[in-house]
């Protein structure tokens, strides 16, 4: 019995240790289920993890913003800046700030000093992972407390994208960063509609309304992000009413099932994630263009869409998604044709196909790996799938272990970002500047470096788009990679939630919660 007494004491202590209560019935609390075991850090300049994006979106503002519910760069509107002007040569930009914008937690009024500090921080490689985007920022200065001037070393046509309410464009409180130092990552202070209140590791992050928000006091009192990595758990908690919004399971049968539920709205939104298979040209015989074209002809993209479901996927045509600035569908098409694929292989000297060795993949890409395995087997191209966990896969594909790398990505919707990361020779994996060029395009065979470099500094938007179109055409002629499918982001919400905006597309990878979002 003594054991029981001891354990009973422990349990009682456990209950008591948990501390006082926090919610009252009258509060409007929005509960969101996030497909993640935990969040990362809440410094927008240093974090890109999925779970953080929607949280940071509510905490911070940029100088300009996408209209909520849209990621169309044509719809950019004022955020912390009331208005802005650019010099005739596009090299000097002046932003006129709103007056009276208050930071959270009494950190005072947002002024030009905070903006200058934030942009400099975003451009510094020690404090920002987005620094490469800001290399053209020659000088950022506060003209007066409400005016910021940015001088560029060369013309940057996507300049507004750099001061947008996303990634490096977010404005932080200088005082708070100086006060908290490295601890700012768990003490974020911004100007957004919701302020950070509490983070309980592996459980939830609580945001509370910022009553002095410059667009008006938020209608919700609090937003709680629960980290629920198990799909079934998220689904059951949502149906039970313990969560108001969740990320969906990307399977059509599941979507259909959820659509039948009362009071549930399913949103499948572009631009979504583009999955491509990259052909590692350092692995023989993938350096042969006939072989790569044969593989493209052997791939049945329709099957890739069907395994997820047609209603939650889109056709992948080019190496960037439709909706990205600079997208074109006027690129080489490799229709699904096994005979043609076999003929090309025969021409290349592989009438019976070949083996590509081991193919490392994680549960997330298993579906793509198996489809590729099944489809390519029909032309005699084989490989053995080896399952590892997701971080291990990421490490291994960067060590050139795979001949084929299926990879899904959603990037800032400008042609340059995606193409530079996947096809510029600077981005070849295993190099100091390496990102995700798995094919070694631009090194094994000449690539599109010049086109991308030119486009980046081209002042004329139309000419710039033409360069991006050319780059896409060349890439699909050379096929260092082949687009497979676009998977839309999939969210579910209770019909009783009024988002407060017209939802068309989404880059924050969960619903954006604004001051107008409300529980009906």
């Amino acid at each position, binding site marked *: 019995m003594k054991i029981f007494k001891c354990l009973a004491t422990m*349990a009682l202590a456990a209950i008591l240790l948990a*501390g006082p209560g926090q*919610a009252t019935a009258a509060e409007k609390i929005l509960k969101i289920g996030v497909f993640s075991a*935990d969040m990362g850090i809440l410094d927008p300049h240093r974090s*890109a993890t999925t779970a953080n994006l929607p949280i940071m979106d509510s905490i911070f503002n940029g100088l300009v913003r996408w209209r909520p519910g849209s990621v169309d760069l044509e719809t950019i509107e004022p955020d912390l800046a009331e208005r802005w002007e650019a010099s005739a040569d596009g090299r000097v930009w002046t932003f006129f700030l709103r007056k009276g914008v208050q930071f959270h937690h009494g950190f005072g009024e947002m002024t030009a000093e905070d903006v200058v500090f934030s942009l400099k921080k975003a451009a510094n490689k020690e404090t920002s992972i987005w620094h490469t985007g800001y290399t053209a920022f020659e000088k950022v200065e506060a003209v007066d407390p409400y005016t910021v001037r940015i001088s560029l070393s060369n013309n940057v046509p996507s300049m507004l994208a750099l001061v947008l309410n996303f990634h490096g464009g977010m404005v932080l409180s200088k005082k708070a960063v100086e006060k908290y130092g*490295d601890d700012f990552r768990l003490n974020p202070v911004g100007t957004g509609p919701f302020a950070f209140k509490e*983070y309980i590791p*592996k*459980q939830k992050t609580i945001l509370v309304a910022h009553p002095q928000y410059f667009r008006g006091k938020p209608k919700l009192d609090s937003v709680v992000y629960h980290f629920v990595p198990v799909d079934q758990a998220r689904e059951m908690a949502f149906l039970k009413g313990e969560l108001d919004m969740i990320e969906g399971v990307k399977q059509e049968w599941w979507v259909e099932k959820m659509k039948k539920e009362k009071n549930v709205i399913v949103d499948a939104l572009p631009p979504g994630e583009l999955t491509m298979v990259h052909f590692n040209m350092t692995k023989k015989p993938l350096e042969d263009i006939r072989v790569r074209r044969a593989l493209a002809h052997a791939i049945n993209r329709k099957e890739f869409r069907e395994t997820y479901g047609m209603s939650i996927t889109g056709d992948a045509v080019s190496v960037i998604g439709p909706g990205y600035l600079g997208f074109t569908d006027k690129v080489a098409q490799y229709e699904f044709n096994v005979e043609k694929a076999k003929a090309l292989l025969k021409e290349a000297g592989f009438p019976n196909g070949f083996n590509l060795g081991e193919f490392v993949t994680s549960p997330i890409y298993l579906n793509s790996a198996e489809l590729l395995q099944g489809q390519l087997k029909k032309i005699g191209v084989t490989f053995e799938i080896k399952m590892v966990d997701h971080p291990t896969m990421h490490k291994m594909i960067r060590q050139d272990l795979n001949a084929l790398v299926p990879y899904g990505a959603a990037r800032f919707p400008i042609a340059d970002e995606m193409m530079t990361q996947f096809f510029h020779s600077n981005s070849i994996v295993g190099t100091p500047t390496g990102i995700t060029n798995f094919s070694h395009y631009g090194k094994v065979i000449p690539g599109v470096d010049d086109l991308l470099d030119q486009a980046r500094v081209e002042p004329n938007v139309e000419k710039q788009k033409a360069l991006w179109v050319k780059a896409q055409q060349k890439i699909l002629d050379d096929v260092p990679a082949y687009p497979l499918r676009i998977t839309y982001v999939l969210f579910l919400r209770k019909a009783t939630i009024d988002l407060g905006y017209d939802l068309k597309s989404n880059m924050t990878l969960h619903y954006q919660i604004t001051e107008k979002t409300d529980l009906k």
Partner: protein
Amino acid sequence: MLAYTIRRILMAIPTLWVALTMIFILVRVIPGDPTTAVMGDYVTDKSLEVLKRQMGLDLPLIEQYGLYLYNFVRGDFGNSLITGAPVLKELKNALPHTLELTFFSLLIGTLTGIPLGVFLALKRNSAWDYLGRFFSLAGISFPSFYIAVLLILLFSMKLDLLPVMGVGPAGDTWARMRHLVLPALTLGLLMMSYLTRMTRSTMLDVLGADYIRTAHAKGLRKAKVIFKHALKNASVSIVTVLGIYTGILIGSSVMTEIIFNRPGLGSLIVGSMLNRDYITITSIMTVYAAIVIFINLITDLSYGLIDPRIRYE
């Protein structure tokens, strides 16, 4: 007994050190590192190096180890590599939930498993016995996450009696208990199955012993024979099993916590593992090891309470 206890606690120190060292090395052997978890997967290797330096992951491994061990001994479990939050704080948040769950699972398991085991032993080879053995076998065979989902479907989704997710608001004991029912039942059923089978077989051994026959021959009441003579003698084996299975129970709590989204040690370990948060994993796993060692100690000490012939010298 005091000397024995002190000796055992001292012996736990090298065990913990070995556990800590092994975990420290093992988590670093796995490919992938925490920098990717912080930054997402599409930043340059150069940026990753900056972060690695900031996290102290660029230091030689032996230096990292020395630093970690030095801090650990001083009671500083380090800070999470991802969020920078002190691991001790995360532990303080998580541990009560795991202890709560373990305690109530144990309670459910013990209060049902032992009587059921005695009952089945007494009804040996009857229909009850077969039925009980079948269900206890099923209880052991079904993975706990499957039982968890079945329980949620029945009690939460169909009957709408109990919540699905989380632990309830802090301070609201009633809500916390309601959140605890299903996870505790999930693990309690597992524990019950183990204990039923163990108690049944031990009781069968004891019930066949000469002293039981003697007790019956003396004309003692049946209840007294069973509970005072038979069960008490069977207790040492049962407590041994209870100790071992409590360790297993804590292990099984990982999956249960994930399904019910309880922010306990299990969720902490899995989350940290996925993010390759080396410091958090090492500290938490060492605490886990300490808990298991503590349970073993309690089990050993309880033998003396049950059987006065056992002395600790």
